[in-house]
Every structure is written in structure tokens, then in C-alpha cells.
């Protein structure tokens, strides 16, 4: 159905959805099949093999396209599969990319371990200053990839400002919009060419699946990415797609509650004597508050903060939480707490970590849908226990 003029919460439920014509089931069926029968040699019903396309994955792609206000999106097994497929679709040996230095560690690793070997290079720059992007662009640059808000310090990049530069240089602009989703930020309306989502996060929202998506209004680029996805075999699985379709329905409602809780918790943290600094785009103290208000419809639900007592206190606090879960990922119903310098960003060079503001005392919180009062009480007791010296075991596990 056409979703023009509908409110987000309606689009999340009805956008891109079509009733299965055979049984009229209210939910799209789960086509857990690898292959499809052809009517005659070379004649199929639009589906022939699930690596290429599958009706359930197709339904998810239409639903995400409706949220993004684009043609059907392209869905992938993981967020990294989405980024990898995109980059391999637009870059070849000798080409260059400009990437936000706050980008997810896995994207840095992709360049270091995989794309670099293929002769593809990248410059990681602080994209919060558009001049840095302009300076990094070379004649070989084909794409600029930014993440805003950045992980984990929530540093923002001005999408509109960057898009003016990329248009001038005929370079593609891709925005990883995982932290906000199209409900809270519309990169394509701000001039970007490509929107990337790790659907694992808010889109699914239940920590039930792993997935990624790419949306664009550029039909030729869509076709190219679909062809590369088919070639690489990075297509989303039917069951994951089905679960994600279910998750999307509550996306606007969940985001509203996630943001409400996060605002309360951020304000509480800011006043707490044990807390040195809080990074949250909804706070008056946030240096880029004006930009946040201009390009985002809400501040999101990720908060980072530093404890005055430093790294050991941060680790002790993490080891003492009872309600919050010590886990990577974000965007689910459960509140997750992480220590970026030893987990998500452990793979990043310590010097760069320092430059990015990822101090060893930084803690990232993905605010879930528990009652904010309960999350606050849990943090309060964890800070108190940390101050008393309990729970010092080094947190060490590999980046995922």
C-alpha cells in the first residue's frame, strides 16, 4: 500500500505489507525453503532460489523500504554483510573511501583485514568537521561512509553538510543509521545516497535476530548491490526476516519509550557525584545539541558516561550491575551495559581510542524498556559497590 502521508506507527505496521494472496493470512508466511519450482524452463514466479531472493525476505525489504521512503531495501544476514556487500559493490582495486573515525570497529577491521588486501584504501577522519571530509577526498574516492551519532561517544556528523561535499565531488554518501533508524533520522532526506541499518538493533528490537539492510533511491545502485549480494550469498535468512518483520511493528512505540527512559537516566547520571561526564545528545551540556535538534527527531537511547574514579571503578561498576546485562549489541528491550575500551573497541589502536575520546573509564549504556527507576536503582547500587572496591576482575573478551 502507499504509505505517503501516514504516521510512522502506521507505516511500521502496514507499510510495504501485502496480504499473502493464497490464504489471506494476516501475517506474511515464512517461506523456509531453499528453492522454487519453475512453471517451465526459464519461467518462474519471481523466485527461484533463496540466496537470490525469497518471498519472506522480500516482504521485509518492502517493509523497511516503506520506513525509509525508498524502493524495497536489500536485506543481509548481518550488518557487516550489508556494509561489506555495499563496499564491494562500489569499490574496486585502486579506489578509496572516506570513513568516520568513530565507525564501528568491525568496519575498520574489514578495511584492515579484507579490503586492504584487494587494493582498496580508506581514510578514517573526524567527520564531525566537514572540512576533514573535503580534505580527505581524492580523485580515487568513490564513497564516504559516516555513522551519526558515532559509537560510543555519540559525536554527531552533519549529514547535510557532508552531502553538499559528496555531491560536488560526485562521490556516494552512505550513512549508518543504526542508532536512530529512519523513525528518528532520515539520512536520505538530508542528502545521503544510502542508508545502512544493522537490523539486529532497534529494527528487530528483541535481541532475537542478526541482520542488516541497505536502502537507496538510486535504482541502478540497488540493482548492482542485489547482484553482488547474490554473488557473495550474503542474503538474509527467511526466519530472521520473518522475526524482524514482527519486530518492526512496534519500532516507533519502542523508540518513544527507549528515548523517554534514556533522557531520564542521562539527566540522573549528569547529577550523580560519581560521574565525571555524560555524552547524550538530549542534554543541554551536549556540545552538538543544536545539530542534534536539527537533524534528529529525538536524541536516541544510547548514553555514554565516564566515572570520576577511572578505569578500575568503571570495571567494578560493570561487574556489579544486577538488572542491566553486561553484553555487547544495543537497541533491544533489555538494558545492556558495556565497557567499550575492552570490548567493542578493544581492536582499535589505543592511541586512536584516546583521540576518539574512548577513555578506559567510559561506559556505554543501551537503555532498554525496563522502568527507568529500576535501571537508575541498579546503576546506583553498582556505583556504590564499585566505590567500596567490589568486583575487580579485568573484563577481557574479544571484539565480535
Amino acid at each position: 500500500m502507499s504509505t505517503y502521508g501516514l504516521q510512522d506507527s502506521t507505516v511500521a505496521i502496514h507499510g510495504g505489507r501485502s496480504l499473502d494472496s493464497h490464504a489471506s493470512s494476516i501475517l506474511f508466511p515464512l517461506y523456509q525453503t531453499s528453492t522454487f519450482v519453475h512453471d517451465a524452463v526459464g519461467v518462474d514466479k519471481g523466485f527461484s532460489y533463496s540466496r537470490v531472493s525469497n518471498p519472506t525476505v522480500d516482504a521485509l525489504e518492502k517493509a523497511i523500504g516503506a520506513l525509509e521512503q525508498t524502493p524495497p531495501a536489500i536485506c543481509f544476514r548481518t550488518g557487516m554483510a550489508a556494509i561489506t556487500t555495499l563496499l564491494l559493490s562500489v569499490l574496486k582495486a585502486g579506489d578509496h573511501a572516506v570513513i568516520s573515525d568513530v565507525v564501528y570497529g568491525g568496519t575498520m577491521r574489514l578495511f584492515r583485514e579484507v579490503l586492504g588486501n584487494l587494493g582498496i584504501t580508506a581514510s578514517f577522519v573526524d567527520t564531525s568537521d566537514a572540512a576533514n571530509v573535503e580534505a580527505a577526498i581524492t580523485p580515487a574516492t568513490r564513497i564516504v561512509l559516516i555513522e551519526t551519532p558515532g559509537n560510543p561517544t555519540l559525536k554527531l556528523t552533519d549529514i547535510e553538510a557532508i552531502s553538499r561535499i559528496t555531491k560536488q565531488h560526485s562521490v556516494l554518501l552512505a550513512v549508518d543509521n543504526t542508532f536512530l533508524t529512519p523513525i528518528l533520522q532520515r539520512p536520505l532526506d538530508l542528502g545521503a545516497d544510502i542508508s545502512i541499518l544493522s537490523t539486529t538493533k532497534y529494527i528487530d528490537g528483541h535481541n532475537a535476530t542478526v541482520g542488516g539492510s541497505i536502502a537507496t533511491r538510486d535504482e541502478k545502485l540497488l540493482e548492482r548491490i542485489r547482484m553482488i549480494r547474490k554473488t557473495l550469498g550474503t542474503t538474509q535468512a527467511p526466519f530472521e526476516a520473518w522475526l524482524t518483520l514482527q519486530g518492526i511493528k512496534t519500532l516507533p512505540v519502542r523508540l518513544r519509550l527507549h528515548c523517554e527512559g534514556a533522557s531520564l537516566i542521562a539527566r540522573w547520571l549528569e547529577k550523580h557525584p560519581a560521574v565525571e561526564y555524560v555524552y547524550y545528545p538530549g542534554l543541554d551540556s551536549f556540545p552538538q545539541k543544536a545539530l542534534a535538534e536539527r537533524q534528529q527527531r529525538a536524541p536516541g537511547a544510547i548514553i555514554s558516561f565516564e566515572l570520576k574514579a577511572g578505569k578500575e571503578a568503571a570495571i567494578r561498576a560493570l561487574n556489579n550491575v544486577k538488572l542491566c546485562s553486561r553484553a555487547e549489541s544495543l537497541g533491544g528491550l533489555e538494558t545492556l551495559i558495556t565497557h567499550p575500551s575492552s570490548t567493542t573497541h578493544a581492536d582499535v589502536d589505543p592511541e586512536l581510542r584516546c583521540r576518539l575520546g574512548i577513555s578506559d573509564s567510559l561506559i556505554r549504556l543501551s537503555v532498554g524498556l525496563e522502568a527507568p527507576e529500576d535501571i537508575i536503582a541498579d546503576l546506583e547500587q553498582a556505583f556504590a559497590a564499585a566505590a567500596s572496591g567490589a568486583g575487580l576482575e579485568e573484563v577481557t573478551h574479544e571484539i565480535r
Partner: protein
Amino acid sequence: MKFASRLVCFDPAPGDRFRPMSTPIYQTATFEQEQTDSCGEYEYSRSGNPTRAVLEKHLAALENGTRGFCFSSGMAAIATVTKLLRCGDEILADSDLYGGTCRLFSKVIDRGGIIAHYADARSPEQFESRVTPRTRLIFAESPTNPLMRVIDLRKMAAIAHAHDALLCVDNSAMSPYLQNPLDLGADIVLHSATKFLCGHHDVTAGAIVVKDEALAEQICFAQNAEGSALSPFDSFLLLRGIKTLKLRVDCQQRTAQSIARFLASHQGIKQVYYPGLSESSDYELQRSQARGPGSVLSFTTDSVEVSKAIAECARFFHIAVSFGGVNSSIGLPGTMSHASVPSELQAARNLPPDLVRISVGIEDEEDLIADLDQAIHRAISIQ
């Protein structure tokens, strides 16, 4: 079409516009209607669901019936059959029944005034003498579980029909591949689909197949009214499992034959109960009504302690209830699957306390025999 072909050659998605090779999972509770005053083929998944419908039709065909029904467990299927009875009606069942069925008959449906009687169906004349004017349903398993006694199903059907009663056969131990009770005269065949039909230990399900339309309508009504139908996802998994039924059962049965022969010649074993042994008194009867003896067998050792120790010393045979899956299992029915049989019935059944039941999986035959051999030796040496 031969059985192996019938297992996989069916329409997995009737009317589906995409023609998938595998049945779509309609994980939906409800269906949109085109008009307010009439509904399409599907309305609400308790009453009917496209994924379950494919499974039910497929099972009906495999059992040579006309209508199939799938339930959330084998017990839910059996309970649905008892809904054909009313207060004052009686069931006459063979005395060697699965414990859960006995529990349902003795402790649940009796509240509705339905009475179950038990008699040894291996003596058809004596069994028939227990039929009363109120007997409405005759219920049997063959081979029985766990004593592997073979019941003459043709004779049971004749007795039932002579007295205007229905014959219901629990065919779980055989699967539609090895035995088709409807062809032998039964009115209702049921399965714990958890066993051979699924075969992978990943679904709990039950099935009923009938060939009489009036009977089908009654079962259909009860399935909808009680809400005991199988879920879409479990229906999908079951459809997937059934495709390899013949491959699995052929392999399991071949190995079970070898194991039965090995146990029968083992000096630590007292008696082997398996209708596939030519010296078994049930051998000919089994051959006359089934296409094989299956892969469940039991044996005694003369010592409860030795029997327990064998189960505990075996490595490939997991101590677990249920049977028919790809993994081998072992258990002592007296304390496990049949513990729910009322004690007076247990005594009447004369279930040996040292009885060990094994379900043979698809592991390598040599591994399984070597494992049983070491388990028996260790069990005897411990004592």
C-alpha cells in the same frame, strides 16, 4: 508410486503463487476475510492453518486414509479420540499399553463416566468375551510397548465391528511405512508423531488418520473446539522429518535386527522381546500384518540392578523416554515410561521389573553393539 516416492512427492504448497519446494510456515493466528458474512478457506489457526493442512493431507495419504488431523502431542491425539465417546460408554483396551494412555483412561476420562477395561488382546476369544453392549471403542498398540507383543489387528477389527464398536490402533511403534492399520480394518489410526514420523527429537506432536467422513467430521470438530491442534512451526518441522522416514526406519530396523540377534546369543541376557527374531512366537503374525519388526526392542537380565547398570554404562544409548529418533535410547519402562500405569494394572500386566527397552537410532551398527557389549560386561562385573 512406491512408499519412498510418496514420502517426498506431494504438493508442498497447494495454490501458492511462488511454488516453493518446501511448505511455507504460516506463523499467523488469523486470516483476513474478504466479506463479513463468509470466510475463506482459513479463518483462525486453531481451526485451520495452511501449513498444518499440508501435513494433515500428507499423513492421511501415507496411512491410506482420507482425512488427517495433527495435534500438539500424541496424548492430545488420543484424548481427542476419547471425545467420540460419551458418559456410560466403555473402552476395551489391550492390557500392554503406553503408561500415559492408561493414565488418561483411568484418571481423566473416568471423570466423564467413561470406563476403560483391559484384557490381553493376544487371546482374541478371551478379549472378545470382555466386550459389553456399552463397548464403543477398542484400543490397541501393535507391537505393544514395551513387551513387543504382536496383536492380530485384523481379528481386533472383526471383533470391534461385530459389536458395533470402533477400532483405534496406536501405530507409533511402526509408522505408516511399516504398518497401515486402516488397511487391516481399523477405523482410526493414531501416532505419537514425536517418534518415527518426526525422528529428530525436535517436535512433540500427535496425529489421527481416518477414512470415514462422518468420523472425520467429529474429530475435526473436537480439534477445533478443544484447541489441541499442532502449531505451524511444529507442522513444518514434522513435514521435514517425514521426508526421510523410510531412510531412517530402514537403517534403524536393520541395526535393530543385528542387535536383537546379538542380545539373544549373549549369555548375560535372559530374554529378548522382538518380533523380528525368527524364534519369536509373534514372528509370523508380525510378517502377516506389517512390513517389518521395527527398531524398538526389550530384554531382561534376571536382575534389576544389572538392568539399571546396563542403562547407566551404555554410552551411545541415552537414558531417555520416547523412541523412534535418530539417537539410540535406553530405559527401564517399569520406572520410566510406564511408571504412570496404575499399580494394580502393572501387576496384572506382569511387566518384568528388570525389563530394559532400547530404541535403536541411526548410529553405526558396530558402535552400538560394541557399546551394549561393554555395558553388559561392566554391569555384570559391578554386581
